[in-house]
């Protein structure tokens, strides 16, 4: 199969064109995922652009994004495939008299009666796809096993039909908020990427990129304040999306340069816990 990207630099500039600012690590792993044909497991704090990465890669490669949102209680009938019972029933009733039993039996377990769910859909698709398995840490440990076959072999075994193999190897992204340890078997099959809060320069660029008409000076100040706040010992440090919300708020308020008071008054957009807000407000007004 033809590789999608030529080198790491192409990935990086490509992602930048679709408004996603990747660092070396992110671009490198995406490139590697394509070359080795392996899924990528993305971990990191909430709101650092894990899901967005999958979306951006889909946009970059011009592929369709198929998304499987994980939750507790997800099972194979919702993730892989399901037999269309109603249709099967209709088929049996439609010509009760004519066919022999074995014919009907063969017939109702054919592709026509199969409802494809996201995972099966991703590997049977003719056009290029990017498969996003979102928040994989929410499913139970047992359900994780459902994913193993598709992640390592890109195939799905259906007892009545046989094995369905992928027509083309899709790019697969799994995201996890790290609420529980994923199984070794799953981790072993994936490339691992930890997306952390961006550093000062990258955050500033993200703000400049995503918030229209913001001045360079303000973006710089925002990035600096957010970095200082993240260094505090907080329950929930501000995420990138919260930084962007804050930047937009400041724009709406028509603030050009932030002083301590304005920062304090708008802190509740960055931080979501009362104790965190109090702590940050105290820190910001400290003279030292």
């Amino acid at each position, binding site marked *: 199969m033809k590789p999608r990207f030529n080198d790491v630099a192409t990935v990086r500039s490509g992602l930048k064109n679709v408004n996603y600012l990747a660092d070396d690590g992110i671009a*490198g792993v995406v*490139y590697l995922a394509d070359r080795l044909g392996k899924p990528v497991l993305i971990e990191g704090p909430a709101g650092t652009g894990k899901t967005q990465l999958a979306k951006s890669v889909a946009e970059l490669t011009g592929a369709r994004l198929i998304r499987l949102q994980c939750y507790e209680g997800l099972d194979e009938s919702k993730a892989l495939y399901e037999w269309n019972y109603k249709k099967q029933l209709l088929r049996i009733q439609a010509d009760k008299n004519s066919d022999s039993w074995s014919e009907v039996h063969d017939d109702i377990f054919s592709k026509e009666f199969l409802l494809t769910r996201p995972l099966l859909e991703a590997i049977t698709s003719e056009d290029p796809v990017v498969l996003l398995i979102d928040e994989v840490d929410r499913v139970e440990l047992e359900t994780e096993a459902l994913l193993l076959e598709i992640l390592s072999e890109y195939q799905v075994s259906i007892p009545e039909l046989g094995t369905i193999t992928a027509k083309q190897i899709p790019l697969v992204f799994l995201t996890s908020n790290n609420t*529980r340890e994923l199984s070794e078997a799953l981790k072993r099959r994936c490339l691992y990427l930890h997306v952390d809060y961006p550093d000062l320069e990258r955050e500033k660029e993200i703000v400049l990129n995503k918030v229209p008409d913001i001045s360079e000076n303000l973006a710089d100040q925002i990035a600096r304040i957010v*970095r*200082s706040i993240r260094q505090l010992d907080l329950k929930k440090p501000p995420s990138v999306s919260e930084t962007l919300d804050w930047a937009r708020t400041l724009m709406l308020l028509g603030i050009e340069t932030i002083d301590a008071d304005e920062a304090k008054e708008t802190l509740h957009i960055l931080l979501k816990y009362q104790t965190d807000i109090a702590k940050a407000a105290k820190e910001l007004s400290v003279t030292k």
Partner: protein
Amino acid sequence: MPVLDLMSGFIAELRNAGLPVSLTENLDAMEAVKVIPIEDREAFKYALGATLVKNNAHWRVFETIFEVYFSLRGPEYAITKDGQPDDFWREMQEQMDQVKGQGEGKGSGGGMDSLTPEEITAMLMRALMSGDQAMMRALAKQSVQRFAGMEPGRPVGGTYYLYRTLRNLDLDNMLQKLIDANREMSKQELTSLEERLEKDEFESRIEQFKQEIESEIRRRLVADRGAEAMAKTLRKPLPEDVEFMHASRDEMQSLKKALYPLTRKLAARLARKRRHGRKGPLDFRNTVRHSLSYGGVPADPKFRYPRPAKPELMVVADISGSVAAFARFTLMFVYAIQNQFSKVRSFVFIDGIDEVTKYFKSTEDIGEAINRVNTEADVVWVDGHSDYGHAFEVFWERYGKDITSKTTVLLLGDARNNYHAAQSWVVKEMAKRARHVYWLNPEPKSYWNTGDSIVGEYGAHTDGVFECRNLRQLEGFVENLT
């Protein structure tokens, strides 16, 4: 093929450091190396990281080992005895001369080697002020060359050289100097917010400079002694294996960071266990209700789910110097998952004892509560040396009646009693009333009952004494507790 040899040595070292690298991951790494050229060091590093390291907490260990194995090795890092600069240095110095020439407006002097220490400090300050990366790197190299006093073959660890270099550079005062200089330079008065931001910026630059120095020292040591020997001396335990009693300040920080995700995972696991526990007795009413959809046949029996009572917890912790860190972590741990218990009460002692539950009640911030415990709790009775006997006696007198058959008592400490009276009858009485009494000891098992440690005497009356030297052991214990 040298890269292959290097890779197998590298992976062996990762395993030695405690990272679980499986065979498939090893093969993946080899595949990855094929498509990413080794010359692109950053991409190469991330490629190896993505295939070999599947846990973010292990990243730092990986980085260190990577640097040792794949740091640029060559003559430029050899430690020359006579201090003769080689080609690389000459080139560097030419660059430096240029920079210096621009900066100070005077002609090129004798290169960097001829600078006085004061000049180096001044240059460093300017570099930090402007955030000039190339300059900082060059200065890191120069300061290591000059101040570390490295000699080939000398069996000294990198920390020693780091200490020597930093002492000469006087980085501790650098921050204040930078702030002062910044204040002078800016035209108008800086607001407190701006000043604070500048300070954070300088701090991060200084930190970056320190790291430059550290990796420079490491590179030189590798060049001198070879990667394998270096990797061994640099081997650091993973965060969950760091011992509470001997953690350095940096390790403490990383422990603290590791603690929160760990507790969150543990809480999720425990909650799940509670919900998906084994089935209880038949729920007759529910079964009959569901039988209606099968025409009155109870085809789908329903069961009651048992709701195991959450235990009540009393934590009694020694917070004297030697075991303070351990007590702090255990308290943080317990309070981070306190909704897994019906009630948590905590007591701390040295030779006197005090209840500290109220500090945790009054604030949501566990860190702050721990600080208040350390500063405000009334734990000194006579001389501030551990006296388990007296502390237990007072505990029994004041709070003994609160222990019920639902209570689990956790005793934390190394049981080094300074040869005071043991009063182990208190523990015996506790064990009679409480559901369980456990003792957690942060000392390695081989040290127990040596010197003034009398953990055996207390332990005889408890339901178990557990070695709790690191986060891994602590987590394992707490999981079994609930």
